[in-house]
């Protein structure tokens, strides 16, 4: 099963991304608590990319693909052609330093790394592909 969704880089589109991901997972009978966690991880990845890779320019399009090849694996691909924002290159700050710095960021990366089983980055034909794998 393969699903696709294209979105402009505006934070107001995050809701649409969440609905798309939630619908696909519900259709494939993923348990509700897992659906919520996966939806969150995709929201975090797309908002990071919109903000840091595309400065929230709604003319810039990112593609979201969901592939469920069978078994327990769900593969999520986020494809764009901006500057690569590779979260595996960021170390998560510890919680106390987040509190002291009054930083509002850094938590999203931690969430995605806890929720997803695998995070990979590749480039193909000038496009960045971030591939997230989740076993449910």
């Amino acid at each position, binding site marked *: 099963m393969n699903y696709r969704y294209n979105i402009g880089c505006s934070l107001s589109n995050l809701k649409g991304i969440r609905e798309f991901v939630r619908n696909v997972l519900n259709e494939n009978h993923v348990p509700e608590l897992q659906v919520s966690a996966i939806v969150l991880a995709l929201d975090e990845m797309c*908002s990071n990319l919109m903000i840091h890779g595309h400065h929230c320019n709604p003319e810039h399009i990112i593609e979201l693909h969901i592939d469920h090849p069978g078994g327990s694996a769900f593969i999520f691909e986020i494809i764009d052609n901006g500057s690569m924002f590779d979260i595996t290159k960021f170390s998560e700050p510890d919680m106390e330093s987040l509190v002291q710095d009054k930083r509002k960021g850094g938590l999203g990366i931690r969430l995605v790394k806890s929720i997803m089983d695998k995070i990979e980055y590749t480039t193909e034909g000038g496009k960045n592909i971030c591939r997230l794998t989740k076993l449910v």
Partner: protein
Amino acid sequence: MVHIKRLQESGSDIIAVIGEIDASSSIELDLAIAKSVGEGFKKILVDCNALEYISSAGLGVFMSYIEEFRDKNIQMVLYGLKEKVANTFEILGLADLLHIRENKSEALKLANELSV
């Protein structure tokens, strides 16, 4: 989209968060808390009964006030979290940094105890 309502009860400011908080709407939560602090409230309760979703942008707002609340001796207690929302706090271990209770009366009780 998020909708925020504030009301006061027994000297506490109660901020009810209705809907979804993501990177596009977290500013609303930030403004509501800032307003409550600006008005001098020492006990701030956050009613999460109608909070359907929160991403790191919203969690970051709560985190960003922890230090200021310590300095100003302000107590903030969240209550009424749905399981899916509570799960997000748990993944990050935020339950240790924030005060979270089941319902309003427990939240109020904790805020009063901590204020002494």
